[in-house]
């Protein structure tokens, strides 16, 4: 739904939560909008091809449970939120930030527009849409019988309300982005100049029209269709309440409502949620009578699953071997919408010009050096040995799950230390003083400072392994401050271009849209390496132009871009990953396939 959601993957809690809300494309779409500080990495996997890309290890996981028995009448299910900490409980699409909140939301609330396996909006949901000739106007119609849990019908003004909240000057969340701003009149409203959003027109309670400033294919994947029950939570526009009060109101935290298949009965803050069936669900009667969703520590999740306490749970990758042979469950997995990478700092963010400025004299300015470092990393071993095949070497910056855009001809740089050495030799990085480490082209000592994030047992050996790999080709790489940094300290340095850092290990979760300009564009503040080039600018622009509504055109552009990235190596992708989920064998009609979110109401348990 959102044009593109890229999400930072912090390795911080990799172990805690390589945890995917894998269950749903829908879910993942907004997951993309999570800020969630990386806790939830990978939480949004979206569309997926069966299994994996070509490089995936020979693991073969199903996407849906095999039990095809009839769901029992009035079944009860227990679902885990695998987390080392309590969920936050901001249960509103506009305001929430944590992944776990997103998981809860997906049970009782949904978008008006459904999405398909390609994350594009469809007419299968609670509303239908129509795009105008010039792709600038979207007309939305809510179907009959879509009702909030309190029985009120869902109205167009409820969707308008979401836009009014997101664009409100007091709004302090992270969902006011350029797709929202693209609505005609939104910038003026956002600055407080007007009270109306001129680009949104309410035709009647079930029909409304959105007008956009620019036509962009992003609308098809990024359209915000989450309505807010204005009558229930109170109206900010009339002064009935304020944004701040709304955020902390009981209507959002204690007994929120939506129009999803289940209603929230009770919340034990930070700990568990009890849902009951929404008999009036517009798609039909949900299969389960009730659902308990509770926080389970990653340390104990496998035991809980084994014991049968939990019907559905994500499984941290490092516990794969333990869970593999548990016989009361079935493992589902898909390749996650994420990749880990090594970033090479090459410049600075210019806050005045609001753009990245590449420094040609930066320590990491040598393309050969960057390429060599990529060759030096033995990612295949890490994936196989450390993650038992649940991770595998990355090749390009558009991950293989975007089947249409991932360029398979780009093969990445597989472990090849000899080639790396050759590259360095040729580029003039030679060990001139005989200390075992190469000096730079000018014969100066070369010490590369490497920042990596702490968290989980694997973070440290991986960082260590890379440093060994680089040492093996004669590069002296040292950890910044001699230790791993926690999430905030790490990103504080990376964001602010701390000169202490030359390279860093980061991770991005990608959303439903392959467009990488938010991460690699000249004006993207998230382009932490500060890499820029004219060619890059050109390609990224073309990828989101109106022409790009043509799939073939867009594909070609992105193939070129992937080639460019392979050649220039602003970042070196290290691994792609599987997201693993365990389902008890009694679970039926459950699938993690993208686009199957709409079937949530059919999930059930058999005898």
């Amino acid at each position, binding site marked *: 739904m959102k044009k593109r959601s890229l999400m930072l993957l912090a390795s911080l809690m990799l172990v805690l939560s390589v945890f995917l809300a894998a269950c749903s494309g829908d879910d993942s779409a907004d997951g993309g909008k999570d800020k969630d500080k990386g806790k939830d990495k990978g939480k949004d996997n979206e569309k997926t091809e069966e299994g994996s890309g070509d490089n995936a290890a020979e693991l073969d996981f199903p996407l849906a449970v095999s039990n095809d028995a009839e769901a029992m009448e009035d079944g009860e299910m227990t679902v885990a939120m695998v987390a080392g900490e309590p969920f936050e409980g901001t249960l509103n699409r506009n305001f929430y930030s944590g992944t776990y909140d997103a998981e809860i939301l997906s049970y009782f609330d949904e978008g008006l527009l459904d999405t398909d396996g390609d994350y594009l909006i469809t007419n299968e949901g609670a509303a239908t849409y129509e795009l105008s000739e010039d792709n600038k106007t979207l007309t939305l119609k809510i179907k009959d019988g879509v009702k909030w849990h309190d029985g009120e019908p869902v109205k167009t003004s409820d969707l308008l309300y979401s836009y009014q909240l997101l664009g409100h000057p007091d709004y302090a969340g992270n969902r006011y982005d350029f797709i929202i701003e693209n609505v005609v009149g939104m910038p003026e409203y956002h600055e407080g100049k007007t009270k109306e959003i001129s680009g949104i027109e309410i035709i009647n309670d079930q029909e409304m029209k959105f007008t956009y400033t620019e036509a962009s294919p992003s609308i098809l994947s990024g359209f915000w269709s989450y309505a807010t029950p204005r009558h229930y939570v109170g109206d900010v526009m009339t002064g009935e309440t304020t944004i701040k009060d709304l955020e902390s109101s009981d209507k959002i935290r204690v007994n929120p409502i939506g129009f999803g298949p289940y209603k929230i009965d009770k919340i034990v803050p930070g700990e568990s949620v009890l849902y009951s069936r929404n008999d009036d669900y517009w798609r039909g009667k949900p299969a389960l009578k009730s659902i308990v969703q509770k926080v389970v520590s*990653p*340390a*104990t999740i*496998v*035991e809980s699953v084994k014991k049968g306490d939990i019907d559905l749970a994500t499984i*941290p990758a*490092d*516990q794969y*071997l*333990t869970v593999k042979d548990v016989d009361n469950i079935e493992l589902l997995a898909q390749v996650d919408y994420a990749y880990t990478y090594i970033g090479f700092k090459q410049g600075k963010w210019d806050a005045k010009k609001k753009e990245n400025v590449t420094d040609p004299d930066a320590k990491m300015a040598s393309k050969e050096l960057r390429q060599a470092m990529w060759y030096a990393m*033995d990612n295949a*071993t*890490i994936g196989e*040995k*450390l993650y038992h095949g649940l991770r595998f070497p990355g090749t390009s910056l558009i991950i293989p799950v975007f089947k249409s855009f991932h360029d398979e001809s780009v093969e990445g740089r597989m472990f090849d230390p000899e080639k790396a050495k050759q590259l360095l030799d040729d580029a003039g990085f030679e060990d001139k003083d005989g200390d075992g480490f190469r000096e730079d082209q000018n014969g100066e000592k070369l010490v590369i400072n490497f920042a990596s994030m*702490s*968290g989980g*047992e*694997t973070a*440290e*050996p991986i960082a*260590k*392994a890379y440093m*060994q790999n680089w040492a093996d080709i004669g590069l002296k790489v040292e*950890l910044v*401050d*001699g*230790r*791993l940094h*926690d999430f905030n*300290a790490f990103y504080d340095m990376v964001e602010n271009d701390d000169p202490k850092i030359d390279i860093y290990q980061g991770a991005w979760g990608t959303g439903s849209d392959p467009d990488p300009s938010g991460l690699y564009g000249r004006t993207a503040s998230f382009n932490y390496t500060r890499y820029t080039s004219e060619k890059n600018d050109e390609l990224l622009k073309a990828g989101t132009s109106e022409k790009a509504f043509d799939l073939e055109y867009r594909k070609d552009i992105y193939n070129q871009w992937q080639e460019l990235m392979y050649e220039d190596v602003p970042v070196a992708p290290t691994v792609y990953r599987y997201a693993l989920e365990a389902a008890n064998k009694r679970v039926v009609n459950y699938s993690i396939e993208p686009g199957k979110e709409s079937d949530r109401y059919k999930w059930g348990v058999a005898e």
Partner: protein
Amino acid sequence: MVTVNQKELIAKEKANNPSLLKTIWREIRHDKLALVSLVLLLGIIITAYSSPLFIDQEQLQRVNFLETWEKPSETHLLGTDDGGRDVFGQLLLGTRNSFTIGLSVTLIAGLFGLTIGLIAGYFGGFVDNIIMRIIDFLMVLPSLMFIIVFIVIVPDYSVFTFVLMMSAFAWFGKARLIRSKGLAERELDYINASKTLGTPSWKIMVFEMFPNLSSLVIVNMTLTLAVNIGLETSLTFLGFGLPASTPSLGTLIAFATNPDIVQNKWWVWLPASLLILVMMLCINYIGQAVKRASDARQRLA
């Protein structure tokens, strides 16, 4: 004049000098448990501290993903960890680091607490009042939380800074203890005697009062030594442990965070847990003997 016979007597008396250390040793010798503990502890410590002689630290720290989670075998006496590193070697280095940390914290905090406590106890009155108000305040601080905040703040997180931080929160309890005993000691006439003999205050504190508190200090230190070794472990578990370049017992024990490792990879965490338990028990049993040595009523020897 001094006769030959008396000279012998003098020599005998000199030899008979029952210093605190001697008394402690005598007490330990008479307590089998303490003796065994001492031998065991010394064995552990000597092995750990001499480990750099036969272990190449660089090599030990080297990650090798081809050998992760190996079971104990001849090449790896205690198997390997998630980075394929030899657990036995890490156990030795870890013991050394953990013990160094525990000991340094105990000594630094002990010294600081002792100084402050002696000053408050010796002078009493106004000085004591001021110091105690400060200590009262410090006692209110939730120290674990503060240590965590400090760990997040310090840019250069190493054994050294870690020791400093822990010491910063470990001294006031000691100061309190020393001070209260010091206040009692202060009322005793040998202190008054020294005052009337014109002995300067600092000398009275160091040479008169301190020796009389030394047994208390030693007893307290043995106990806190055990605590301080444990605290590092706990912080590691919470994710605020030492950098991985400094293996410690805590690093190894903190592997025990999920059932798989607890059940199936016991060789990583169990030896370290047992070692810490054994060390703490040893220290405690020795401490018990030291305590008896300091209290003539309870002596076995």
